[in-house]
């Protein structure tokens, strides 16, 4: 829309500085912004009138009131006498619980299936293709309802299936043996994480050394020392106990162990299987995007297959894989809001109940938007950082 005329227009006054195209541009902008502002003002004034007619005061004061809504399944301690604010936080925690675990599992499953589709084994690649095709072409909500109905059709707790010792599958959900985690256990886990980070740093340093003089240096002693021996030593020193708590049937329900409620379990299965079908396609096209010559060249250098995959193929495939993967992660997080259909109380479900109870529509919707925009920004930020790290280092 800028001036096509190469000669600068004569500049006299403020408006004279604008050519005919600029004037037209200004006109359009004023028009469109004017319409947008008019719509917003119209909606806003209607809303204010309607709210005052219903005696609803705007503002976030309602968050302090007693929520009196039941939340059956939550990570954080909650009871219906807590405030709306706390109910909301519990909802966010529930969303994050399903989204984070879902993202991890969907990535693992999707990668396995994507690699299977490229397998030389005809049967495996056909089965993987069938999996992708079927799951991608059926609405997620339908799959979710399907899994939930299957969960409800499972036998009662007394007749629960026991696929493995200590694992129970019944209409109460999936019950797994668990290790109670307290402060001493957290110390050991913290050491483990720190050891892992230290190992990654040392690994990079070792590669840098190899780049300098060409001598390969083994990394496994560091791995053993930092990731296995160090946490084990801390565990022994502190005398941390790692007793496994086995779930037991008492009466009509289970005691001990870790319980995944049917709603949570159905939601997790549906999100993981559905998203993994999309991730599989991304992984497949990423690997296929690496030119054949790269494989040939790596084999010609006599590299071991694992080294070839790790150092030659994967870094190139990841550049194609990471950007679409980001949007799949965002999709999974947004799709977790379908939880409301089966009664798992995620943030949207809690917000919906709040909306029905209080009528504070604008506040509640802006809270939902704030939560999802924050999560989206968080995921995008992390993935952009990761993407920048693996992007092609142009010389």
């Amino acid at each position, binding site marked *: 829309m800028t001036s096509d005329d190469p000669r600068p227009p004569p500049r006299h006054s403020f408006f004279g500085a604008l050519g005919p195209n600029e004037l037209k541009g200004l006109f359009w902008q004023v028009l469109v912004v004017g319409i947008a502002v008019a719509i917003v003002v119209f*909606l806003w004034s209607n809303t204010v009138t309607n709210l005052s007619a219903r005696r609803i005061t705007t503002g976030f004061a309602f968050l302090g009131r007693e929520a009196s809504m039941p939340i059956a399944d939550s990570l954080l301690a909650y009871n219906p006498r807590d405030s709306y604010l706390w109910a909301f936080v519990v909802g966010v925690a529930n969303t994050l619980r399903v989204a984070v675990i879902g993202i991890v599992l969907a990535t693992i499953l999707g990668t396995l299936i994507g690699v299977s589709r490229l397998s*030389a084994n*005809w049967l495996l690649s056909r089965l993987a293709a069938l999996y992708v095709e079927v799951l991608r072409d059926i609405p997620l909500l*339908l799959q979710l309802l399907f899994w939930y109905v299957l969960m409800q059709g499972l036998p009662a707790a007394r007749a629960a299936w026991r696929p493995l010792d200590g694992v129970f599958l019944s209409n109460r959900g999936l019950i797994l043996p668990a290790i109670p985690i307290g402060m001493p256990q957290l110390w050991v886990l913290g050491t483990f994480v720190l050891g892992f980070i230290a190992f990654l740093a040392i690994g990079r340093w070792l590669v840098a050394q190899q780049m300098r003089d060409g001598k390969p240096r083994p990394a496994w002693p560091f791995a053993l020392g930092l990731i296995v021996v160090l946490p084990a030593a801390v565990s022994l020193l502190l005398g941390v106990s790692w007793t496994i708590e086995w779930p037991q049937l008492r009466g009509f329900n289970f005691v001990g162990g870790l319980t995944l409620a049917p709603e949570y379990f159905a939601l997790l299965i549906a999100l993981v299987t559905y998203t993994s079908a999309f991730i599989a396609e991304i992984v497949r096209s990423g690997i296929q995007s690496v030119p054949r010559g790269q494989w040939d060249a790596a084999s010609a250098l006599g590299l071991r297959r694992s080294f070839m995959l790790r150092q030659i193929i994967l870094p190139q495939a990841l550049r194609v894989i990471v950007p679409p993967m980001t949007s799949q992660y965002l999709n999974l997080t*947004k799709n977790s809001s379908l939880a*409301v*259909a089966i009664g798992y109380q995620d943030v949207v479900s809690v917000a919906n109940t709040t909306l029905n109870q209080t009528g504070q529509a604008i506040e509640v919707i802006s809270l939902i938007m704030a939560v999802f925009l924050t999560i989206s920004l968080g995921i995008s930020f992390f993935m952009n950082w990761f993407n920048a790290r693996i992007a092609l280092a142009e010389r």
Partner: protein
Amino acid sequence: MTAITDMPDLPRAARRPQIGNPVLRWLRTNLFSSIPNGILTIILLAILAKGVIGFVQWGIAHAVWLTPANDSSACKAVRGLGACWAIIPEKYRFILFGTYPFDEQWRPALSVALFIALFYLSSRRTLWRRELAFLWIGALALISVLMWGGVFGLSFVSQDRWGGLPVTLILATFGLAFGFPLGILVALGRRSKLPAIRSLSVLYVELIRGVPLVSLLFMASVMFPLFMPSGFNIDKLLRAQIAIILFAGAYLAEVIRGGLQAVPRGQYEAADALGLSYWRKHRLVVLPQAIRHVIPPLVNTFIAFFKDTSLVLIIGIFDLLTTAKTAIIDPAWQQFSVEVYIFVAAIYFVFCFAMSRYSRSLEATSGR
């Protein structure tokens, strides 16, 4: 190096002699190329056989196909052993057409057929002309007449009696028919040099894409009356339709923007050089090329929308999934929801699979 390139063409490495039965040879290269591969094949075959046998026993051998009307006792007898497909002939009219007056159900059936014909014609490359837009307008008008009635001797059927497959198709098709022009406008807005228009477009796209469709639908169903002057209200289906159009517009805008970026700069400059106005430049030169670039991702977005229309279940609109869910509330048939879900999944699958096949064939031929 020169020695090698200058050498006369060597005979190609002798091909492996083709001995033995071709079937055995195929098995060998594709299933048993190495020992681990062979073990994998056998394990997969065992799992597959178990799954197929289980499904055949449940779905065919022990299944109940027909029962007397409204009598599920035969199904209850085989519960857990065999499928109860008898629920489909019992309930299919309700699942497909919801509470539409029973004697008038040929009208939604005809509408579905019209939709399918419309999709088919739109997929033919030779018909991608301006007339296609008139075809769409005509077909959608005809479908509206069929569904509502009230003219030509057709009795009037109000929107809250609509249900099932026609509602799903209406939500998806009208969502696209209105979302697409909206998407084009927003995509152009996002690439505009005018800062105010650009920021408005960015704001719209990012806000809509940032929240789940579920919350938009809640907004449409719960908050819409708050936004409007008191006393003014519109139908629930229309409100959901507006939410879907706004949602579709934001996603389609991003796809179209990708296409606009792929049009070479020279095309814009050539159009400017011809003295075309902004709108004529885009309509005649830029957009036809841009949209052609992004047809495969557009079809993928269409598939996603078609599936996403099922979310209206959450706000209680009777689309295909909601009628299926309602059909199994009937206490006599309550236990046979899996069969109904499989039936509905098959319908969704047929539509989406056809579209994804089509998208792939376009991708394969677009390079030529």
